[in-house]
């Protein structure tokens, strides 16, 4: 700790007099008498090789800020990346609540002393239920991918079937997570899709669905941009085969797009990040699963479920754990999969966001995004060599085809960085069949001026 010995501000009992008093109280001279319980050969005798500590908060702040300054951020630059984490506006009220030490630093207390946390997460689940059209929504999962994976395992138990069919255009990273979770006993099979519209190939779905299919999963909006319009047809094909239907949604789109519950889906999954969380280099994600409030569906959740309950004070909203025996906390390996610490704080942030937005906010934001995206697509298509593969509506994300420009997406993005623009995601590795295409994302934060900056820069780069 440097030359001078400090009592660390976070370790009060290292103060020598306090230490002596405490050791005296237990009749010990030093900590060695406690650690004697660890056999000598298991003790670490060396000193950990770590940098000298930075004990001043002021100095540490400058140290970390200097590192962070090496990142290009979406505040000083214009960011067109989406595809799972989006550049939405985060209201100050959400930040204020998230930073409250009460919520930020609480953990697994019961509702008696953490009543506020229980009610906030209950309200969060309720509002996600309203957006998605379901009466049951669990406490947050790790992320969207985790939500799909858990829902697949839930569907397996509910249907007694071992196969999951997924839209072939789902996000590849999410699919990797699903494959890992389903690996022990389930198979995951991709369904083909129309390269131009992104829509699921219904003939391929019909050919692959069988009495082994537990669930059919697709994303709406589609990962590659565009929308899956044949939702009623997919639901019918799946239900006729005795399979369930799972839809991955961007919850921020549900002010304008129909709720999956309303078109007959059995599960809606997605990410909380669009609901008031910063992008934070992937640190803003947290998932949700909404489903039917029937025992065969709700009863298969591995997650904690906070339910309303009466108390000795009449009229008080009490809370407790619903059907706790399901969980691995209660039943270890006999519980439903496993649970643990996930992203509860983000569920609370989402509650504040949804309450602020209300039905009007979601509708207007959705309409505005649809307009900005339509405008951007139309203007980009005017740039020689640039094409927009999909003609329908897109919400936030859409593909931009640079194949005819003679440049790779990587080259274009490198050049865009010079104009203080973070270009769309290069998908040439994930979907080589599209060649040099990029996944662009436009949200409510993009002004006409931002979009014009993109058009101007691309014209110069490609021109």
């Amino acid at each position, binding site marked *: 700790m440097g030359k001078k010995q400090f009592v660390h501000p976070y370790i009060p009992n290292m103060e020598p007099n306090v230490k002596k008093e405490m050791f005296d109280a237990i009749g010990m001279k030093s900590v060695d008498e406690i650690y004697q319980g660890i056999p000598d050969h298991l003790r670490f005798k060396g000193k950990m090789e770590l940098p000298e500590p930075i004990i001043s908060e002021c100095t540490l702040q400058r140290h970390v800020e200097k590192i962070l300054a090496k990142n290009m951020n979406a505040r000083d630059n214009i960011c067109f990346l989406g595809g799972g984490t989006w550049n939405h506006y985060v209201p100050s009220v959400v930040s204020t609540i998230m930073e409250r030490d009460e919520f930020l630093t609480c953990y697994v207390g019961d509702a008696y002393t953490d009543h506020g946390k229980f*009610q906030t997460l209950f309200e969060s689940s309720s509002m996600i239920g309203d957006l998605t059209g379901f009466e049951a929504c669990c406490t947050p999962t790790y992320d969207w991918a985790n939500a799909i994976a858990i829902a697949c395992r839930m569907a397996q138990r509910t249907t007694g079937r071992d196969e999951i069919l997924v839209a072939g255009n789902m996000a590849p990273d999410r699919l990797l997570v699903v494959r890992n979770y389903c690996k022990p006993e389930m198979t995951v099979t991709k369904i083909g899709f129309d390269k131009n519209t992104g829509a699921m190939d219904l003939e391929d779905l019909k050919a692959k669905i069988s009495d082994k299919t537990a669930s059919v999963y697709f994303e709406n909006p589609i990962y590659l941009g565009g929308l899956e319009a044949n939702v009623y047809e997919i639901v019918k094909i799946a239900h006729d085969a005795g399979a369930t239907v799972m839809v991955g949604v961007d919850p921020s789109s549900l002010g304008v797009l129909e709720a999956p519950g309303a078109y007959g889906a059995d599960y809606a999954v997605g990410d909380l990040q669009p609901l008031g969380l910063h992008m934070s280099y992937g640190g803003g994600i947290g998932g949700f699963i909404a489903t039917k409030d029937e025992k065969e569906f709700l009863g298969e959740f591995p997650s904690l479920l906070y339910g309303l309950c009466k108390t000795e004070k009449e009229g008080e909203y009490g809370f407790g754990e619903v059907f706790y025996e399901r969980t691995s906390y209660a039943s270890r390996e006999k519980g439903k999969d496993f649970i643990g610490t996930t992203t509860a704080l983000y569920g609370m942030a989402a509650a504040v966001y949804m309450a602020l937005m209300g039905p009007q906010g979601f509708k207007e934001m959705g309409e505005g995004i649809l307009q900005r995206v339509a405008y951007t697509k139309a203007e980009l298509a005017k740039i020689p060599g640039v094409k927009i593969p999909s003609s329908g509506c897109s919400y936030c994300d859409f593909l931009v085809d640079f194949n005819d420009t003679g440049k790779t997406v990587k080259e274009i993005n490198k050049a865009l960085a010079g104009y203080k623009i973070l270009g769309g995601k290069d998908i040439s590795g994930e979907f080589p069949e599209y060649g040099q295409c990029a996944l662009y994302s436009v949200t409510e934060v993009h002004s006409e001026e931002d979009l014009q900056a993109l058009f101007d820069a691309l014209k110069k780069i490609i021109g």
Partner: protein
Amino acid sequence: MAKVNFKKDYHQAKWNEPMIYELSTPGLRGIIPPLVEDKIEKAVGDTAAELPDSLKRKSSLDLPEVAQKQVLAHYLHLSQETSGANLTNDMSEGTCTMKYNPRLCEDLVANPGFADIHPDQDPDTVQGMLQVYYEFEKVVKEVSGLDKFSLQPGGGNHAVYTAASVVRAYHEARGELAQRNEIITTIFSHPCDAACPATAGFKVITIYPDEHGMPDYEAIKAAANEHTAAIFMTNPEDIGIYNIHADKIVEAIHAVGGLCFYDQANANAFLGIARAKEAGFDMCHFNVHKTFGTPHGGEGPACGALGVREYLAKFLPVPTVEFDGSKYYLDYDKPESIGKVREYIGQSAVVLKAYAWSCMMGADGLKECAEVSVMNNNYMVNKMEKIPGVTHAFQGNGIVRQEQIRYSFEGLKEKYDIGSDDMNCRMGDYGIPWFWSSHHPWVIPEPMTIEPCESYTKEDIDEYCEVVAKVAQEAAENPELLKHAPYNTAMHRRINEEELDDPSKWAITWRAYKRKHNID
């Protein structure tokens, strides 16, 4: 010396908050999204009208309509009805290492250089964050002695699940997965050490303790055979006893061809003191949000750092963060990887805070955390043992406890029918946050698990013991008082708890509650 603040007149904030839905007035709103400029509006018109009919939202959207001040006030009130560790004496949550979470770290994650960077940015544009990942990995490598870490798992249990996936991949690569379908764990290891391997497809064998409270070495040896894929064990287990047979257990499992995973959720007391490497483990994990000073967030966001020996590194999730001498980069070139367990490379907010916290500690500071934690715990148990009706697991076995203790109110239960829940409720009336009893099954009757880590003062510990003594005394003098506690927290004693297990009554959303309970 500071005053011991026994809060005899404590009362938690109690706002009688309605549901946010009940604060709704049609037409109100909390925020206005950015308006579309006229130029765009004129160019594209009403794009929403062009949505396919099947996707136009026709179902009602019954979100609350509330003005901004009222939304803010509602959630401020609810936050005040919550016992965060930074404002309470939260040594209550044993096994969870409820440290002080520095405010500085919250400032750091609000910096646009972090908050506003996208995870799919080209690595060249996020060199700062990749540096943070790389440097923090060095810290956990040093603390464990292991060779390679993944910071991708989103929590401790998630890291344990990832470890189970690595075990699966390892035996699969050797062509032995069909044969090696069993994982051994111990009953005082966290439930995830049983549940995660089960989720990954393994049969779970659970070992109970010997007469000293230690995992029964002979029983483990007897359970190990050609079907053993691995052992998953916590050490010290959740009762705070260090397993002196750790290396012998590792040898026994290795001897039959199994792997050894060390659940280090309870690592705080051993930073710089004892490591996974010296005990011979193949893998270990840290709950970054516990051991490395980041907030728990009411159950996340979190990060589970999974460490392995070199020969298992090829199975870790992709990508890993590497450095070529001049630049940091993401390495996806791992054909034998288990794939991914989470989107992107990890819970970056937690990693950044943990990196900052570790910078402030250094090697000596980390060791000081460990040493002060075990001192605090032994100071506390010495006081607690003197409280009538309070005992602890395997008391009197001659083994010095480490960072935490599983206490028991069995004596109070037998004499006055006052158990763990009753004590917990009443302690809340004195400002003590809900304590962690134990995972199920309750091997130790009427348990209470307490971990007075390095953040707490001597007076905090004294206060805690005073509250336990006071409530234990109340249990003896007026047990009925405890049966209806709490009185001074935000919520009163639950009744009709059976409704929480009744599908016709339970409600996890407002909409379900209104339907099932006939609320207009």
